């Protein structure tokens, strides 16, 4: 925070014209980061476990046009899989590489066979153990048995079976801690399976735990809930959850999400869905969330720019981030919607305080041309999001203030007419029914 809340004071005189066009020089001179290509290695290092592999594969799929990046991602995925036991995924990745990375990254059948054999042995062992536990009816051991099975299936990529086994442990949980553990495992698998309905239900189950949860778990649950809301397109709720995420999260949850992601997801969702007041209170003045924002300075800057109405630079940041965010496994689907909403918000906020706005100036503030801007504004006015009318001749936008008195008169007269009409047709229908009934009555006896 660099005193952005004070910007309104001293800057107001000279800033009205330059609103968002120039910004202050200090900001302009700062190089905009991360416009360059995504550093796959640095990105991958943020994650661990299965999500790392999945994210790498996702990047490879999305960047087909960029062979260097695709191969880099696949190479790292290959290396990562080799450390684990998921032979199915291994086969898939090898097929995707298709020998483009030389003999080092070819099909390793021996490894596969070895892993598969070991897996079969382990499965047999686990089954025997579980059966033994079950005959002895020792709850804790049965729980452990199922849990081991869950872990085993997860490691081998059989997510459905893993989920089933984790859920099965529930009947054998004896303490609140066990329940939370079960929930966390289920959440992890559900996220991998993209079953976000499960995620939210297990999050709420874990939060109902009678014992106080440790801060790291709480933070993890917030992230998971945020992701679930994001996938359900409830951006406002998602933003709230991410903003509530405690900084204790650190790197503890990098099998799902990196703290950088919390900042990006939370920041973008908040921009798209919060009003100015909420943005200030819950994002900019949020000490806790600031820790996350420090990790992704671009997002911090763009939020501050948005709040202090430097739309051009804000949109610049957004534009630069876009390419990389499109490679994000969770955000890519929602990026267009979020960007659209942020842009609309910016347009609305820009026009709000003025009685009249010069479209040329506004267009340059938003780095677009006048006719494009006119179209955007037209859509917003039609949606009744901006109360204004466009003077297309002089290229000026005039705010429009609804005349309450006239509107009331109009409504009253209209309501009267409607009432008149409705009552008349009702009376007519009543008479028809009465007539019909009388007819029936006279016919019957």
């Amino acid at each position: 925070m660099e005193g952005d809340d004070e910007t309104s004071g001293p800057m107001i005189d000279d800033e009205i014209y330059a609103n968002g066009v120039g910004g202050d020089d200090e900001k302009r001179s700062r190089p905009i980061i991360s416009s360059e290509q995504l550093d796959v290695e640095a990105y991958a290092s943020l994650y661990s476990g299965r999500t790392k592999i999945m994210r790498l594969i996702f990047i490879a799929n999305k960047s087909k046009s960029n062979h260097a990046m695709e191969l880099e991602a696949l190479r790292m995925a290959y290396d990562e899989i080799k450390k684990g036991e998921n032979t199915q995924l291994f086969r898939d990745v090898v097929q995707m590489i298709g020998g483009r990375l030389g003999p080092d990254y070819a099909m390793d059948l021996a490894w596969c066979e070895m892993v598969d054999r070991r897996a079969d042995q382990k499965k047999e062992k686990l089954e025997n153990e579980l059966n033994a536990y079950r005959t002895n009816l020792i709850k804790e051991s049965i729980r452990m048995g199922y849990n081991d099975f869950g872990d085993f299936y997860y490691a081998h990529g059989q997510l459905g079976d893993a989920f089933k086994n984790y859920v099965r442990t529930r009947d054998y949980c004896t303490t609140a801690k066990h329940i939370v553990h079960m929930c966390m495992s289920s959440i992890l698998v559900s996220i991998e399976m993209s079953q976000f309905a499960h995620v939210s239900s297990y999050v709420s189950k874990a939060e109902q735990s009678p014992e106080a949860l440790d801060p790291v778990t709480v933070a993890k649950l917030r992230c998971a809930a945020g992701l679930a809301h994001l996938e359900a397109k409830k951006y406002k709720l998602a933003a709230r959850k991410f903003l509530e995420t405690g900084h204790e999260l650190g790197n503890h949850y990098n099998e799902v999400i990196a703290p950088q992601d919390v900042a990006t997801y939370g920041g973008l969702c908040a921009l798209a869905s919060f009003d100015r007041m909420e943005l200030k209170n819950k994002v900019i003045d949020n000490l806790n969330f600031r820790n996350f924002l420090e990790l992704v300075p671009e997002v911090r800057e763009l939020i501050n720019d948005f709040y202090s109405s430097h739309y051009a630079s804000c949109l610049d940041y957004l534009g630069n981030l876009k390419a990389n965010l499109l490679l994000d496994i969770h955000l890519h689907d929602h990026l267009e919607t979020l960007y659209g909403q942020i842009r609309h918000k910016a347009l609305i906020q820009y026009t709000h305080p003025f009685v009249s706005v010069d479209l040329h100036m506004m267009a340059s503030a938003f780095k677009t041309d006048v006719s494009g801007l006119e179209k955007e504004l037209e859509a917003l006015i039609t949606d009744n999001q901006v109360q204004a009318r466009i003077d297309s001749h002089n290229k000026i936008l005039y705010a429009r203030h609804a005349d309450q008195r006239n509107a009331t008169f109009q409504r009253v007269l209209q309501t009267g007419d409607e009432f008149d009409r409705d009552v008349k047709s009702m009376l007519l229908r009543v008479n028809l029914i009465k007539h019909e009934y009388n007819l029936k009555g006279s016919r019957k006896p």
Partner: protein
Amino acid sequence: MDALQALVANIQGLSSAGDISHLHVVLKQAPDSLYAESTRLLPVLDQLDPSKHSLGYLYILEACSSGSISKEQGSALVLPIATFINSCDTEQIRLAPDKFLSVCKRFKDQVTVLEEPLRGVAPMLTAIRKIQTSSEHLTSLHPEFLLLCLLSKCYKAGLSILGDDIFEVDQPRDLFLYCYYGGMICIGQKRFQKALELLHNVVTAPMTVINAIAVEAYKKYILASLIHHGQFSTSLPKYTSSVAQRNLKNFCQPYIELANSYSTGKIEELETCVQKYKEKFENDNNLGLVKQVISSMYKRNIQRLTQTYLTLSLQDIANSVQLNSAKEAEMHVLQMIQDGEIFATINQKDGMVRFLEDPEQYKTCQMIEHIDSSIQRIMALSRKLTAMDENISSDALFLGKVGRERQRFDFDDFDTVPQKFNI
């Protein structure tokens, strides 16, 4: 002196003596064979004065016109009937309304056969005014009259009775036809609001079986609603009879599709839809209305622009509502300004249109008067409603029905003991 001459003498004698009710009995008792000799009856009419001997005249006229008659005979009848309607005595004819209605219907049939519907318009209007007990009463002559108006394109004459509020109905079929023809007349006069009201009455009227009038009315209702409101909601109000709710849409599929394509706001989609069902619309005689729907879409789009813009060049208007040229756009805007649909000025020098706000400030005396009259009207209406409510809640049949239903309900309530225990 045969029976017919005796009858004529009776008519003359009793009518001048003022003993109309006795005459009515005599006329009713006269043997049917007397009325069967239609060829001899017509000359007899000359001996009677339609204004004084209205009842007798009516009986004989009815006898002449009933049964099958040739075209020449018919045309000979048209004139005496028209004179009779114009000069007959209201009180006398009300004694035999059935006869009067049937004479008028024959009259309408004759002018239609002669293809001179215009000749029927004025006498029919007089006939309606003479036979109806109050202006709220719908007679079976109403639809016949409106049909004549439609055939002769005398829409203005039709409007004069459409202005009355109808509450009392003898035959539901009359109401259906009255509202349907009335709707068509109002559409012809571009009074879409009133037309919608009438057509709405047809569509939502209580009915136990679906009828062709309602289906045709629903088609026109969809089109008129698109022209007037620019939208159409396919859901009917909940007081609509269930038959109508279930079936109407199935009969009017092309129209529903037209309404859907209208709601997209894109002129091409509307036009493809119209092309697709052109034949269907033509067969229904609705193609003209469909064309009006298309042109109303241009209007709707221009109207939307007034919400968004203060000034806009004609070329931009043409582009955004997909008209071919600025000239065409100018014509549309001009027409709309004339019709009071938008408030705008055109600056021909630089081809700009300046949209203005509605100048109505609700401050004028006329407006106050208008509001006052609306209040009075609604107060009267609400009084009527209360009266109707009281009337129904003290209606013997209604109370009987309600009572019966409650009794049955109670009976069911107590009848929970299985039968075999009773024995």
